């Protein structure tokens, strides 16, 4: 390779690196509470025993409230803010959202719970919810695909399609 070709190669490499670096710039803020990007970046948070004891207590209270359905939405909001790294919180919110008929939001919350702990899709696990998540995923996706053909999708709905496919991929198994 001549000097010139070397120079061109170097410029191309720098351009590639700059282009890839630009991927880190903030893109438009997601309109849904949970987007595919927040799923990708979700982190499990470890807790010390004291924190963990508090968390368990709050979670039990929330469970009772959700079952009784009084002010559940507000309490769950607080819990999600306080413990975003705990799968239990997202799964509980998902269950609540499902009972009030907000299927798309419920799906995204299940997705977040699965992302933090894949045991929800593990047949032998005590927290297995695979069948429930699978049928919800299929329903939501079917509705969205129908709507796409009829009238097109809003940006929020596009995000939910992505999340539904994320769950499809996880339901299909494979390495993590």
């Amino acid at each position: 390779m001549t000097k010139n070709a070397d120079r061109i190669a170097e410029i191309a490499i720098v351009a590639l690196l700059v282009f890839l670096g630009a991927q880190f710039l903030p893109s438009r803020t997601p309109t849904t509470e949970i987007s595919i990007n927040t799923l990708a970046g979700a982190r499990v948070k470890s807790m010390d025993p004291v924190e963990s004891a508090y968390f368990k207590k709050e979670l039990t209270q929330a469970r009772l409230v959700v079952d009784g359905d009084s002010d559940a939405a507000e309490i769950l909001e607080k819990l999600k803010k306080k413990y975003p790294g705990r799968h239990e919180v997202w799964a509980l919110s998902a269950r609540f959202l499902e009972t009030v008929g907000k299927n798309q939001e419920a799906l995204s919350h299940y997705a977040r719970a699965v992302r933090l702990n894949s045991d929800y899709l593990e047949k032998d696990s005590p927290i297995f919810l695979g069948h429930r998540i699978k049928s919800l995923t299929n329903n939501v996706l079917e509705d969205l695909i129908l709507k796409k053909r009829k009238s097109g999708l809003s940006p929020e709905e596009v995000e939910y399609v992505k999340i539904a496919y994320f769950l499809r991929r996880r339901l299909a198994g494979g390495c993590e």
Partner: protein
Amino acid sequence: MKWPKGDGLLIMASGLALGFFGAALAYWGNPANSGICISCFTENLAGALGLHPNTRMAYLRPELVGFIAGAFLVALAGKEFRPRAGRLPVQGFILGVFLIVGSSVFMGCPIKIILRLGAGDMTALAGLGGLAAGVFIGIRFLRSGLDLGNETAPSAPFQGAIVPLIFIALFILSLAIPGLLIRGETGPAAHAAPVAISLSAGLLIGALAQRSRFCVTGSFSNLFLARDMSLMRGLLILLVSATAVNIYLGIFRMGMLDQPGSHPDYLWNGTSMLLVGFASVLAGGCPFRQLVLAGEGLVDASVVIVGMVVGGSIVHLWQITSTAAGPTPAGKVAVLLGLIYCFAVVRFNRRES
């Protein structure tokens, strides 16, 4: 086209064995589309040794031991076991780390690209393109006078046998002392073909690959460099046999959005495999080939493998590995660092000949 003979047939047999067992092992119990995946298996090994806390990815896969042990035994038997060392060890170690970093962001090693394609997963095409581009870049730089130093026989020939023997010893210990190594009870670690099948498949493939010198990135580099199709033919047979087995077993499902163990972020699928291709050329072979080379006594490959195990640990500790939701921010940063590292290796090893 001439009908290949001798080495050519061995290469095709290696491709056939890898394709058949790659698809069949997933059917017999390994995670879907991951019948054979060096990066997944290496991450599993790191987990089994307790080097990362994700027990879902903790299992000493008999296949991994089989590859290196099969190559080691056949090389010994065929008098091809020649301990050699002398390249830049630290440099190779870090290349090993980045081989796993790139693979984990793509979610699979170069062999798994082909296996995923063979199961109908078209997201792997971006990875294949990236891999080919990475090899091409690596070859360009090698041609323009990069010299990574040559191997000479080390003063102590035992050096070349250390890592293969450690793998064999670990495996025997894991059978003899249950509980010594960590074995995850959920997730991919719980999905495994029976040990006897895994080990025999591994030994067979390791032995064939030692004789045939099969290598995924080598297929591309020989094609680009010498218009030599012999290794590429093995790769094509791998694809065809994996596809055939998957169709026969009813696993084949063409698609992009809902494939197991994948994410549809094409940019990072391609970029991460570009890193793997580039790093593979600099390290002298794809992750699978490194195992076989280590079995042959190449000390530098042993060093790369130790780097790969460390890589298998940090990709989980630092959330570098992608999930079905896509690449993580840390993963993207790590791939960029890897590319910068490869360019630095090239930049500071340049020697005009």
